[in-house]
């Protein structure tokens, strides 16, 4: 039987999405025709799109890949149901990052130099292609069943694991390259965020982000269709998230103390306040998730995952915007086109995830 294509209902979110996409497409067009609307320069090279789409997108993608690969290797039956969701998340993370990269560069003429093999974009492109390949291999049997086609040969699945590992390597390389890129000129970055350990911090926080997004998405899938993770599984993931966040926060604070950077979060400087906010958004979920009773409540675990996600966003934006603002003593405000493009790309990613979650079995609860 041929699947019926359902026309989406025009609810509140559909209207929001339509408005945001219309504005985003127009802003994208303007940026490509007339260039970026914010004077990005060698002094202030990063924008909202770099922080929100590229850094956060790659973080979520790397987190998703690392989770999927570790679950495949360790063969943890308890967390096996989240492998598919992790893979989809990784792919969409790269889609968001690639769209962010393309749009943050403005005019089409500037896109050409992205083809250098030593560029970070090269690594991202490879990670993107591999993630797409892994995803296709994972979902081909379901797609075939869904569209009434013939099932693909079984041996095709054996390619999945090697491809997944190469993708993990590329995603880690992307994280490391981004961290190196951000502190290529250490005098232009505040010592609160510039550290030799930045690649490691990026990696650990990426795994936390991947886990947090899975819990966050599962809650929304459960609310919409009841096909999300079971409360027991959410409690287990919440426990793992608390441990990872604790590890990340511990090494982050230890690094600041080791480098002798004063943690003057109560001082009136915006960078200190924002660092304090970043720490709070990571500390609060840890405190809440330590309590077994809170772990049993999926709503609290969901809120904690939201806070952890907000902590990651704060960290990435602080690293690429606040730290430069603090070091260069300048202020940055995103232009209207940056704002629209950044949020429309995120909306596109969320809508794509929702579309996939409705049609394919993302969470395979036994």
């Amino acid at each position, binding site marked *: 039987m041929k699947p019926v294509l359902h026309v989406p209902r025009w*609810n509140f979110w559909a209207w929001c999405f339509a408005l945001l996409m219309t504005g985003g497409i127009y802003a994208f067009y303007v940026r490509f025709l007339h260039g970026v609307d914010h004077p990005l320069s060698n002094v202030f090279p990063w924008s909202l799109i770099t*922080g929100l789409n590229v850094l956060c997108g790659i973080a979520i993608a790397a987190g998703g890949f690392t989770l999927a690969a570790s679950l495949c290797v360790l063969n943890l039956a308890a967390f096996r149901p989240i492998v598919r969701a992790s893979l989809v998340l990784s792919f969409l993370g790269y889609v968001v990052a690639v769209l962010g990269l393309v749009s943050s560069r403005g005019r089409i003429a500037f896109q050409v130099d992205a083809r250098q093999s030593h560029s970070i974009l090269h690594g991202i492109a490879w990670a993107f292609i591999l993630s797409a390949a892994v995803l296709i291999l994972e979902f081909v049997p379901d797609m075939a069943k869904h569209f009434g086609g013939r099932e693909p040969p079984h041996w095709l699945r054996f390619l999945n694991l090697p491809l997944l590992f190469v993708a993990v390597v590329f995603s880690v390389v992307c994280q490391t390259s981004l961290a190196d890129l951000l502190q290529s000129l250490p005098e232009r970055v505040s010592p609160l965020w510039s550290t030799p350990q930045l690649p490691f911090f990026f990696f650990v926080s990426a795994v936390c982000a991947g886990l947090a997004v899975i819990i966050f998405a599962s809650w929304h899938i459960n*609310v*919409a269709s009841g*096909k999300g993770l079971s409360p027991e599984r959410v409690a287990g993931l919440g426990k793992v998230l608390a441990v990872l966040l604790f590890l990340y926060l511990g090494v982050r604070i230890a690094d600041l103390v080791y480098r002798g950077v004063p943690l003057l979060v109560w001082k009136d400087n915006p960078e200190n306040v924002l660092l304090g906010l970043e720490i709070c958004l990571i500390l609060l979920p840890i405190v809440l998730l330590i309590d*077994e*009773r809170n772990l*049993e409540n999926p709503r609290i675990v969901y809120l904690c995952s939201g806070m952890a996600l907000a902590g990651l*966003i704060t960290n990435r934006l602080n690293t690429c915007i*606040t730290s430069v603002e603090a070091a260069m003593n300048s202020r940055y405000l995103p232009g209207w086109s940056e704002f629209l493009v950044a949020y429309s790309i995120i909306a596109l990613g969320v809508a794509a995830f929702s579309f996939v979650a409705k049609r394919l079995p993302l969470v395979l609860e036994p």
Partner: protein
Amino acid sequence: MSVLLALLMFALVMILGHLFKPRVQPSATAPAETLRPFRPLIESKFGMDVPRAYCFHPCHTWALDEGRQLIRVGVDSFAANLFGKIEHIDIAGLYRWVRQGQRLMTITGASVSVDLPSPVEGALTEVNRAVLEDAAVVTTDPYCDGWIAVIRSPSIGTDQKNLMRGAMVAPWMRYSMMFLREMCSQSPALAQDGGPPLPGLLNRVSPVVRDRLVKEFFLTTPTVQAHSADQHL
């Protein structure tokens, strides 16, 4: 500034997501066939049906420990009989955490709505869809098909200490029946020979007596249905 802007947008989306969340689809609850509990062994004590292994909250809700911290809950036959024809049941949201004694459901009868508490503390993992569609099942079969929800309760051991179980149940039910008889001694809905009251006693007594009954047996204040209030006026 950009960081705060991004966080505000994130918080706004979360709040709007909460306000404009879609209603839980039927697939959120498993099919009734797979969740149907075993029919309990009913013992007749003091002329009343007492299901074996069930625990009872003083507000006439029951809890059945099914293992793996899963507790099936429902309304006992005494409460179901008091309501008579139940028109609608509103149950707390799926995956919501309810505390012992906190509101779990609102039962709307012909003339009155009453909040009933949860007998145990935990997360609401399943809701009986059959009861939402046809609330009359609660009156006809309160201990089996008329179950209300399944709660995942990690603290069931502690919660059970606050519930009536085993040998305590029959005397408590008998006391409830005696008290009911005393309160409604003038009502024609109760036979003076000691037989069970007619179903829907709450709809047959005066508003004053009805409020007293609700306060006594459900430890709460009732919400009077609009049409019923008009009728009494």
